């Protein structure tokens, strides 16, 4: 270590030049950084719902859709219908749009005297009141799936825009959104759907990045200036922060890892952590730099003192972050890996760039003022004496806090709701809520029905199961409507039997039909009624044949595959609340198990993806806490060469975590994909405080009384611990200025965790020493 410092301090220019060159390399890579705000894309590939969701793109030409709604008190005026008609046509011609379903173009299956007619509801917009009435008559009385295209109060028209699956949904969403923004109309237009939300999420992330990072830098500058009142005291740690963030993001860009909803927070987290080592080094340097000393000499002394603690705290922090990989959510693991890399980068710069720069700079003119730290030191001494004399008060208070926190646990709600993440007035949320309040819903559950052979989806028993499944789904709360091939077959069966409601169903396996036959009687051909039996399968196949005679090649492509082997039922849901989705999921699963046996059935859709994330959040939470605790125990046990000390280290962390979850319970902060990160980060960063205190306690003379040793340890470690916690805690608190509720909550939680783990180190550990301190090896 000494040699290493010697090398650095002997070749300061070379060191800085090398760092500069690598910085240029990563900086150059920054232009390649991509963004992937889609939360569901970080789901592991082996999750069945995700696997199937991806596979849907192989089977059907379109998967994701955008829901646009137009609102007016006089929706059915010829002028408004004209606008809607035009809007529908224009949307259809957007290249990334697969198909559009709106009140002006929905296909109507009409029964006619002699047969069946399939065509768009309108050829041209209605011109007068009479035509409007006729149009409304057809719209409302043709058994159409209008739940997502006309609101119950008749004031909103919905346009479902299905996106081609050959494009990235959010790119197509940007195209559709740009189009909608430019629509010149008096009507109020709303727009939502998963691709739109992902688009908004990306924009919000960009905004967060642009606002929060400068904020955290400003905060750092401010704290550094208050601490040092000295240019180098500000610039050197700030340099470490900037270079380590730049390297980390540059590395991500180099490896082709996009910025996700999780790694979006990385610069803020990293900046808050990266500044700490610099503070310690500068503080030490400015304390040691007295007139008559040489910069090289002072720097070497400082580094000799601090090399080890800087490495140890950085390594424990990095391990804490790496523990995030215990979660199987890809983006969370990436946050862990790259923040860990960033922490190590920061450590590296603190040990190279700062000493190299200090060697090159002349000694500061003024020595650091000591008055400020003197009153702080007096306060810490007073606190230590108070703690020693009132240790039982402390013990009781701590136990009460723990008890109260534990009581809050059952109140913790697991809730991943990407819409609740947006502020109440954000267009993403306003539009989503308005549309979902009036239509069937923009979230969908897909029931995939997979046959074993071609044509199985034409079997009456399969279609019957599907139709019953839809009836069941429509009875569930929050399910606003369903769509499947079975609807069309049912409708056709009715239309083909003179619109008789007896035939408003899927044909039976064998149907009795009446028809006519031409027979020759007395040399003349006459028509004669006959009754005969026919397989339902043949009926269905021939209905489809009839439909196809006037349809387009891909009319059913989004409902059933080309071979009629795999089909799907889409159920539209008006919420993303994981609680609701879970209940629905369980009910649907149970129904399938008991009632659907004509084909294999699997579930997917956006609702299933949200649920999968939810489940992973719970599992990830548990494992990442476990892994980070084990890592902390391991690292500190090795460091202190004592398992007891290693275990003791996690006590303040356990306290911080218990408080964290208690707080979440009582303050109704939901556990979700963002707030789940709190624990692991808190463990990695918060362990430093305990390390410092235990280290100080252990180095005190064994012969002194425990109380005396506790007092001295607090006096020596108290101020740095508090300053450290304050800097990091305030830095993390910047996250609470995010526009996203989840990130906000996490900023608050993690700031609190900094102070509670700090409290654990300066209150709980001393109390433990005071009660159990006689034992050796603590």
């Amino acid at each position, binding site marked *: 270590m000494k040699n290493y410092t010697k090398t650095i301090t002997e070749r300061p220019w070379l060191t800085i030049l090398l760092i500069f060159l690598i910085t240029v390399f990563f900086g150059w890579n920054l232009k390649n950084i991509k963004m992937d705000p889609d939360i569901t894309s970080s789901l592991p590939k082996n999750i069945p719902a995700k696997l199937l969701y991806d596979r849907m793109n192989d089977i059907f030409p379109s998967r994701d859709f955008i829901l646009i709604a137009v609102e007016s008190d006089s929706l059915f005026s010829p002028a408004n219908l004209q606008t809607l008609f035009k809007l529908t046509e224009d949307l259809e011609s957007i290249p990334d749009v697969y198909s559009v379903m709106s009140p002006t173009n929905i296909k109507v299956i009409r029964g006619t005297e002699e*047969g069946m007619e399939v065509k768009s509801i309108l050829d041209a917009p209605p011109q007068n009141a009479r035509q409007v009435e006729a149009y409304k008559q057809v719209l409302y009385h043709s058994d159409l799936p209008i739940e997502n295209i006309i609101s119950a109060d008749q004031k909103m028209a919905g346009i479902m825009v299905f996106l081609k699956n050959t494009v990235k949904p959010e790119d197509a969403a940007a195209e559709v959104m740009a189009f909608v923004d430019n629509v010149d109309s008096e009507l109020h237009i709303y727009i939502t759907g998963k691709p739109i939300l992902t688009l908004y999420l990306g924009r919000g992330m960009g905004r967060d990045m642009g606002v929060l990072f400068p904020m955290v830098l400003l905060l750092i500058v401010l704290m550094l200036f208050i601490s040092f009142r000295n240019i180098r005291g500000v610039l050197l740690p700030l340099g470490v922060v900037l270079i380590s963030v730049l390297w980390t993001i540059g590395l991500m860009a180099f490896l082709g890892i996009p910025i996700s909803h999780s790694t979006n927070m990385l610069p803020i987290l990293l900046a808050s952590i990266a500044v700490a080592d610099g503070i310690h080094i500068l503080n030490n340097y400015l304390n040691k730099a007295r007139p008559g000393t040489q910069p090289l000499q002072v720097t070497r002394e400082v580094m000799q003192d601090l090399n080890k603690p800087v490495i140890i705290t950085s390594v424990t922090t990095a391990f804490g972050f790496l523990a995030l990989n215990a979660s199987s959510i890809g983006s969370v693991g990436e946050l862990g890996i790259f923040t860990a890399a960033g922490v190590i980068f920061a450590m590296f710069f603190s040990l190279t760039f700062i000493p190299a720069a200090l060697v090159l700079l002349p000694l500061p003119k003024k020595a650091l003022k000591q008055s400020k730290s003197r009153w702080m030191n007096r306060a810490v001494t007073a606190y230590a004496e108070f703690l020693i004399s009132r240790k039982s008060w402390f013990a009781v208070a701590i136990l009460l806090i723990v008890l109260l926190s534990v009581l809050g646990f059952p109140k913790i709600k697991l809730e991943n709701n990407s819409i609740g993440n947006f502020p109440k007035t954000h267009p993403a949320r306003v539009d989503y809520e308005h549309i979902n309040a009036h239509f069937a819903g923009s979230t969908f559950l897909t029931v995939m029905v997979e046959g074993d052979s071609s044509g199985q989806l034409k079997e009456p028993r399969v279609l019957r199961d599907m139709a019953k499944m839809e009836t069941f789904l429509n009875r569930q709360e929050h399910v606003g409507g369903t769509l499947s091939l079975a609807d069309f077959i049912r409708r056709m069966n009715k239309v083909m039997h003179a619109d008789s409601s007896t035939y408003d169903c899927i044909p039976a396996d064998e149907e009795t039909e009446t028809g006519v036959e031409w027979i020759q009687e007395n040399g003349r*051909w006459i028509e004669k009624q006959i009754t005969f039996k026919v397989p339902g399968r043949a009926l269905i196949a*021939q209905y489809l044949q*009839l439909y*196809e*005679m006037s349809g387009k*090649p891909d009319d059913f492509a989004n409902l059933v595959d080309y*071979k009629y082997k795999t089909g799907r039922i889409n159920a539209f849901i008006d919420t993303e609340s994981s609680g609701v989705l879970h209940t629905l999921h369980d009910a649907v699963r149970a129904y399938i198990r008991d009632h659907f046996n004509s084909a294999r059935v699997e579930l997917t859709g956006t609702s299933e993806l949200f649920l999968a994330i939810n489940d992973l959040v719970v599992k990830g939470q548990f494992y990442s806490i476990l892994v980070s605790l084990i890592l902390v125990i391991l690292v500190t046990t090795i460091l202190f060469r004592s398992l007891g000390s290693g275990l003791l280290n996690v006590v303040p962390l356990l306290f911080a975590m218990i408080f964290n979850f208690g707080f979440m319970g009582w303050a109704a902060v939901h556990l979700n994909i963002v707030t789940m990160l709190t624990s692991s980060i808190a463990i990695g960063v918060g362990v430093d405080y305990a390390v410092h205190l235990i280290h100080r306690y252990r180095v005190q003379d064994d012969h002194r009384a425990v109380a005396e040793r506790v007092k001295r340890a607090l006096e020596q470690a108290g101020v740095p611990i508090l300053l450290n916690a304050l800097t990091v805690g305030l830095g993390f608190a910047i996250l609470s200025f995010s526009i996203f509720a989840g990130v906000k909550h996490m900023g608050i939680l993690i700031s609190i965790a900094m102070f509670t783990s700090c409290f654990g180190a300066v209150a709980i550990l001393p109390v433990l020493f005071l009660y159990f301190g006689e034992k050796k090896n603590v």
Partner: protein
Amino acid sequence: MHRYFSQSALSGPVFKWMLTALLCVFIFTALPAQDLTGFQIMEKALNKSSWQDMSGEVTLILSNARGERRTRKIDMFSRKRTAEESDMLMRFKAPADVKGTAFLIIEKKDKDDERYLYLPAMRRVKRIASSGKGGNFMSSDFTYYDIGKPKLRDWTYKKLADEKIGKWDCYKLECLPADENIIKDTGYGKIIRWIRKDILMTVKSEYYDRVLRKWKTLQVPGMETIEGVWFQTDMKMNDVQNNHASEMRFTNLKVNQNIPAKFFTQRFLQRGR
């Protein structure tokens, strides 16, 4: 089938809507005319003489972006009822679940064609509402318009520089719709045609949508003469916007066998043979 047919004279122009394939020509009418205008070329191509009736077997192959296929086999009969109107009957042989269904089209000069489908499962004839010329022919990428014979004056023609398609010298025509209704009716904003100089048969076309994006391409890998009449016996229509393709192959083509008129009635449709 043969016993229903007897020879009759060739007559009249125009079989308006079924199959450019069935457009036919006396091979000798093609003139080596360098200085023809686009309009004149099209006029000559359209005014070729034709057959009175014809029959054949059609294989219709639809394929989607994933390369999956749906294959239909059909027996087809057609007969000119008047100079400008024809009737057509198609009987499905495969796939099995639609075997026996039959499709009858009665062409009407000044109004929508009558289209009927016989469904053996119901033993009923169902009328199919006309979806206009722009409607898809049996759910394929061919529209009724594509397989029919275009009206000369529906389009304006611009002769582009001659090109070779394969080994054939071709005229290249840019056809633009004469008015808005044509666009509405056909869905096409522009068609480029390559017409063989020697026999005046279209060997390739490109279809553009109303905003002039390329939409479909037609290729004609197979052409045959049957009793001196040229037929497009293999046509491939490729929808480049939706990645869907349809191919029509004709075999066993016969012409002028004197198919009787009663062949093309609802009663016959239902009764079978």
